[in-house]
């Protein structure tokens, strides 16, 4: 079978082009001056620079984590450029008409229309290109209902009280090696504030693109949903095909105050490297949300890109009756490696969490689910349901599950189910005997496997995710 399956997993990465856009790129290197330079570029207030420097000093004394089930050569953090911005951004464009046409063309090539009239109905978009946010659509319209959606660098200047109060409140500067690095050198990202009782009238989305060579992308996203508010947020990411590995270390913080709901969906399609494992993005990301009383945080992710993924979107269920959810599809092919999962920390009474993780491995790739469910002594009546399923395509890939369960309250109810299966010869033969070709058969089988997660995605994203799987699997069967 492997031979047949093998040849189905080979298709070109469609977002792998590089755009010829003139950029101001900081020379590689990392010291306090780098941090000062970035802060100065962003015209940040003093308190922000101090915050960054504190993070940088902490980072210098920290060690890179090695516990993940991934292998890659040591990263030389001094050989990376920590800031790159398109030249035309020097005087920030005030409207879309002033945006570099090359940039608009780049996004059109990616199938993302930046013009508001052409943009998907009901989706507002922030677009981050290398280290800067280049455009945020529907900003004014959202402002009418009190929703703030802007680049985080703007928020630092315009809404310092909100930023000061919440940045680092969920993921502290010293949380981990990559979070500390991000806290020191983060360049841009999105900021969202939904006022009390407001249901955000459209989906918010951020599109991340790495374009420059040898550049790391360190974006930071902060979403605050005030009491009783609702928001659904989507992010997508791509990068050019390059032989060198590039680093992406993001931090995302979600704050859901009492009775608020945040739904955060990701379609991660960073360049995964070529079929021999050359190049690709190192995706080392810290994502965490805190849910107050009766609040709900839901993470949905479809991870098909990156050479190495290290990512655990988590929920701290602080308030009583709060709910945390994690729905994940992680697909690895060729030489990709993924170590991904979640942490559900139950603090409040009657807190509930659901984890549905689907891992698909093809080629010579390795995919691991790593998840922690912790029930603290205060979490009377907490419940967790975890389901992790692995699907193997071919016989040279691997799937691993590392569940950690810590419970300190006897009233907790925790369920854990795990399965491993293969796309079997028999399944393929059944499909082909009914007239379907092998590629269609594999994509149907894989999509069926992911169904429970896809149904959690917003409509347009679900369609995109299905197609992405099909492309990512191409060549895995012959």
């Amino acid at each position: 079978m492997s031979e047949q399956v093998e040849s189905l997993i080979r298709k070109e990465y469609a977002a792998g082009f590089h755009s010829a856009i003139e950029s101001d790129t900081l020379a590689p290197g990392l010291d306090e001056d780098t941090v000062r330079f970035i802060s100065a570029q962003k015209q940040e207030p003093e308190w922000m620079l101090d915050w960054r420097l504190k993070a940088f000093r902490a980072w210098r004394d920290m060690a890179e984590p090695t516990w993940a089930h991934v292998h890659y050569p040591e990263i030389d953090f001094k050989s990376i450029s920590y800031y790159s911005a398109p030249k035309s951004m020097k005087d920030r464009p005030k409207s879309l008409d002033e945006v570099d046409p090359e940039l608009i063309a780049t996004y059109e090539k990616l199938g993302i229309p930046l013009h508001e009239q052409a943009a998907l109905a009901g989706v507002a978009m922030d677009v981050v290109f290398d280290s800067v946010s280049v455009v945020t659509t529907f900003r004014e319209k959202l402002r009418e209902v009190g929703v703030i959606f802007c680049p985080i660098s703007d928020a630092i200047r315009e809404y310092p009280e909100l930023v000061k109060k919440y940045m680092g409140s969920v993921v502290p500067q010293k949380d981990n090696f990559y979070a500390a690095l991000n806290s020191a050198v983060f360049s841009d990202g999105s900021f969202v504030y939904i006022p009390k009782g407001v249901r955000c009238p459209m989906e918010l989305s951020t599109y991340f693109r790495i374009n420059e060579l040898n550049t790391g992308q360190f974006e930071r996203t902060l979403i605050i949903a005030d009491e009783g508010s609702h928001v659904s947020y989507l992010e997508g990411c791509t990068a050019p095909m390059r032989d060198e590995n590039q680093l992406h270390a993001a931090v995302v913080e979600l704050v859901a105050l009492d009775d608020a709901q945040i739904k955060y969906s990701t379609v991660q399609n960073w360049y995964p490297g070529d079929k021999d494992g050359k190049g690709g993005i190192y995706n080392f990301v810290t994502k965490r949300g805190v849910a107050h009383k009766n609040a709900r945080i839901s993470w949905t992710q479809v991870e098909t890109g990156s050479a190495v993924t290290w990512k655990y979107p988590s929920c701290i269920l602080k308030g009583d009756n709060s709910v945390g959810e994690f729905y994940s599809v992680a697909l690895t092919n060729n030489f990709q490696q993924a170590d991904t999962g979640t942490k559900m920390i139950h603090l409040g009474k009657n807190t509930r969490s659901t984890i549905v993780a689907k891992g698909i491995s093809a080629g010579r790739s390795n995919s691991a689910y790593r998840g922690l469910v912790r029930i603290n002594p205060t979490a009377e009546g907490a419940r967790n349901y975890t389901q992790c399923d692995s699907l193997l395509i071919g016989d040279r890939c691997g799937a691993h599950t590392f569940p950690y369960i810590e419970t300190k309250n006897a009233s907790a109810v925790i369920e854990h189910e795990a399965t491993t299966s293969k796309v079997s010869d028999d399944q393929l033969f059944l499909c082909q005997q009914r007239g379907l070709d092998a590629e269609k058969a594999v994509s149907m089988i894989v999509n069926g496997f992911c169904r429970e997660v896809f149904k959690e995605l917003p409509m347009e994203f679900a369609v995109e995710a299905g197609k992405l799987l099909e492309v990512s699997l191409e060549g895995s069967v012959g």
Partner: protein
Amino acid sequence: MLEIHELVAKVEGKQILNGLNLTIKPGEVHAIMGPNGAGKSTLGNVLTGRAGYEVVSGDVTFNGKNLFELEVEERAREGVFLAFQYPVEIPGVSNMEFLKASVDARRKHLGLPELSSFDFMKLARESSQKVSLDPAFLKRGVNEGFSGGEKKRNEIMQMMLLEPGLCILDETDSGLDIDALQVVAAGVNAMRDNHRSFIVVTHYQRLLDYIVPDYVHVLANGKIVRSGDKELAKELEAKGYSWLEKESV
């Protein structure tokens, strides 16, 4: 419609079919019987092109086409259908989605337009009722959590929807209780006409009480060693296979 000439085939290096000849005309029902290991299931798998079944020599034409020049899915689209002895599950893929994709693939091959979802749904519901499957099964994953009998009825439902020219039933009666057997047989009989042919592979004469064959062949040591009409099946039921096996060596 189907001509099998001197077919020799191997499975895992072992020769299973040793020069098999069989001619099937449109509208005929041929039963293939024989002891375990005679090559009964191998025949169906070789005709449909399953991986691991290697054709050493001989040829097979189906409606004038050389079957061995076609891919697995092309043979299916041409109208060769295999009802599996052990249908596999495909979790999460709804029966409806799977069936529509199959029917569309066949229709496209025949130069017919795809059915609208509405028309297809109607057709699928009718077929499910013909095999006494609750239409709710159409929404479930392919064979997911189906009982043995439900799986077999699902196979017959697929056969009805795809309207193949040649239906190969591989021990469809195994594991069926008498009620399910009757439902399956009724489904098959309803599909019999002057054009459609059947190869019914079975161990037992019982199925042939319900699906009455035009010819009965005994397969032993990879060859057809005796052919006759339905009376041969009864004789086999009484005498077993060993007397024929001895003759064939």
